Every structure is written in C-alpha cells, then in structure tokens.
C-alpha cells in the first residue's frame, strides 16, 4: 500500500504543505527587506532552519543508535538510517545556502566560520556513514557499526566546534547569534520557518521509514 493512500499521512502532508506555503508567503511577502543585508537576508530563513533540522536529524541518529544497541530492535536501525539520510540532505542544503548568503554579506563564498565548518565535517562523517552502510558486509553487522558511528559522530560535534573556534578565533560569529536581537517583524517569520522545517523533517522521516520497512520486507521474502 502506498504511503500517501493512508488517510493519516494525507492529512499530515496537507498540513505540512499548507504550513510551507504560509512560510514562503511570510518570507517573501510579509517580512520587510533588511536595511543592511537587503535580499540576501531572505536566504537566512532557509539556511538556519535547514541547519537546525540537519543537526536535529543527526542528534536523532545518535538516539536511534543508542536504542538499537540497547534494545536490538530493527526499527531503531531503520529510524537511524532514515534520520541520517534526511540529516545529510539538509546538511548539504546548509552547505549550499551558506555560501549564497555569505558572498554578498561577507564578500567570500566560503569562510571557516565555526558552525559552517562543523557542519562540513559532520557532513563528511555521514558520507562515510553511508559508505560504511553500503560496503560494511553482513547487514546485521552493518546495523551495529552504523549505530556506533552515529553515536561517535554526534559526540564529536561539540569538540569539533570548540576546536574550530580555537583554530580561527578572528572569524565572525554566525548570524544566528544576532537573530534574537532582531525586530519582531524579522524574528517571528524566522521562528515560524524553524517550526515548519521541523515539521517537514518529521513527515520526511515517516516517509523514509515506510520505504525502508518496505525494502526490508521485500528483501526478506
């Protein structure tokens, strides 16, 4: 049975799509143009929510990994894999939208800013994660290895961040730090965008888990 033939999933999709349309309307129509950053600031309403969603997804990969190693239940492995896939997609979007925003504002497409660098390192670890999944050998063993790698990767995040900050302390702080100082007409659409992207992550997670379950079922038959 198709994922979207379920009534519950149709409602979910309807809600999330409507929220995303409202989000786009708020970003492009309602939010005033920023006096300093002009149109470049618009990308910020996508860049930070995708970063937040990517890190949330990777955090949940770690949680899935811990639960899989503890409970030995296949569903947690599927959960970890689905979350890793979505996390990597969102992290790739962060790495694309970051330079688009940075070029007009900072003058360089890429700067070794701590959060952006941490995101790049984490993205590379998860590229390795998928290679391990693909070439790791026996599926049961691969699930355990992937769970362990998911835990290792997220445990590394704070250390990478601190070390990159220490490496190049002169680099500018990330714009997210200044966002809470913005006027409500900039801040509220930003918070709404964070919420909508989280909802997008949740429905994507549901969909990917459905696909992975189907794939596993077909392979076992």
């Amino acid at each position, binding site marked *: 049975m198709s994922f979207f033939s379920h009534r519950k999933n149709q409602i979910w999709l309807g809600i999330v799509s409507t929220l995303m349309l409202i989000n786009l309307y708020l970003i492009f129509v309602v939010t005033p143009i920023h006096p300093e950053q002009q149109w470049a600031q618009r990308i910020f309403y996508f860049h930070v929510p995708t970063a937040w969603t990517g890190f949330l997804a990777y955090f949940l990969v770690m949680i899935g990994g811990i639960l899989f190693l503890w409970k030995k239940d296949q569903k947690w492995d599927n959960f970890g894999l689905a979350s890793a896939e979505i996390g990597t997609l969102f992290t790739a979007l962060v790495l694309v939208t970051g330079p688009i925003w940075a070029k007009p504002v900072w003058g360089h497409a890429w700067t070794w800013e701590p959060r952006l660098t941490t995101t790049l390192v984490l993205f*590379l670890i998860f590229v390795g994660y998928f*290679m*391990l999944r693909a070439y790791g050998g026996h599926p049961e*063993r691969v699930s*355990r290895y992937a769970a*362990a*790698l998911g835990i*290792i990767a997220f445990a590394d995040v704070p*250390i990478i961040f601190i070390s990159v900050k*220490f490496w190049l302390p002169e680099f500018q702080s990330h714009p997210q730090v200044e966002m809470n100082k913005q006027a409500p007409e900039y801040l509220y659409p930003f918070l709404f965008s964070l919420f909508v992207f989280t909802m997008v992550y949740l429905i994507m997670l549901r969909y990917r888990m459905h696909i992975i379950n189907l794939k596993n079922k077909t392979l076992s038959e």
Partner: protein
Amino acid sequence: MFFTLLKKDLLLELRSKEIVISMLTFGVTVILTFAFSFNVSSDIMGTFAPGLFWIMILFISVLGLQRSFAYEKEFDAYSLMLTSPVDRGLIFLSKWISGTLFLIITECAVALPFILFLQLTIDVNMLNFCGVIILADLGIMVGGSLVSGLAMRAKMSAVLLPILMFPIVSPVLIAAVKATIGLLNHEPYAYWQLSIRIMGSFTVIFGLIGYTLYDHISEE
C-alpha cells in the same frame, strides 16, 4: 588480560617489524614529497612545519592502523579472539595503546629526517614537546582504533578508514598544530592551553566511548 593482549600486539610487531618499518618508510617518503612541493628554505618551512608534521603523522597512523588490523584478519584471528572469554573493551584498549606506542617509536625515528630534509632549526622545550606529541598520538590513535574496529571487516576497509578517521580526529589535528606552533614560537602556555584541553577531552571521551561500544561492535 589487558597486558596479555598488549603483549600479543607488541610481540607480533617485534617479530615482524612490519608496522613500524612501513610507517617509517612512508613517513620519509611523505617528507620527500613535502620537500619537492615547497621551495625548501628555513623561513618557509618554519612557518609550515607544525602543520606538515601533523599531516605526516596522520598519514602514517592510517598505515599503521591498517597493518595492525590486517594482522587480525589473517587466518580469521579476530573471530577466534572473540570466541575467547575476553572483555571486548580491553581488545580496543590494547589496540589503542599498542598503536600509540608504534606511532611514538616511528615519530622518534622520523623526526630526524623531518628536521634535516626540511632544513628546520628547532629550539623548543623538549619535555613539553614530548608531552604534546604523546597526548596528540593518544588522541589520533583513540579515534583511529575506534574507526578501524568499524571499518576492518568492510569490503573497502582501506578506503573507509581515512574517510571516516580524518574528519573524526580533526579536533586533535587542530589542537596538535596549535600547541606545536605555541611551543615553537615560545608563546605563553595560556595562549595554547585550550589545545591541551581539547586533546585531553577528546582522548578521554573517545576512550570511554570506544571501551563501551567495542562490546557491541565486535559482537558476532
């Protein structure tokens, strides 16, 4: 039991000398490529030396880890070891410590050609320098041993090891380079003390994670 496992790794290496010799030869080859790639002069090399040194160490550590875990794959020795009543966390600890020892031995031997070929003048507090090197080696090897445990039995283990290991140990690399620059430039300890904390925290955190996870990783 830990010492028995460590003794096994050290004895194997003492008999074959494969790991240290291959790491050393590779290290000298890397130094040669550095010399060919840069216009060798004391000024230029002095600026880049800390970074180049740790890049070389990272490369040779991969080679050492690959050899060390290749021993275990021969005659399926690893599976046999897992059937014995050994705490799997101790297998990780022995691999980590033996790997660090091999790396330190190689560094001692490779330091002379590094200084000689790259025309470096080193004026540094040796005790502090050795401390930084040992701490960084422990950090590199704790990450490396953990990743090796995951990649060892994969189809593309030789490719997977550096792909996974380099980003994971990147904080140690940054901290080691910073600490080495600080030492070589005689900067006050306060300027680079964070690098010691980063390497220390990384080693402790990943040592504990490795000890705990190895039980699950090596389940059959």
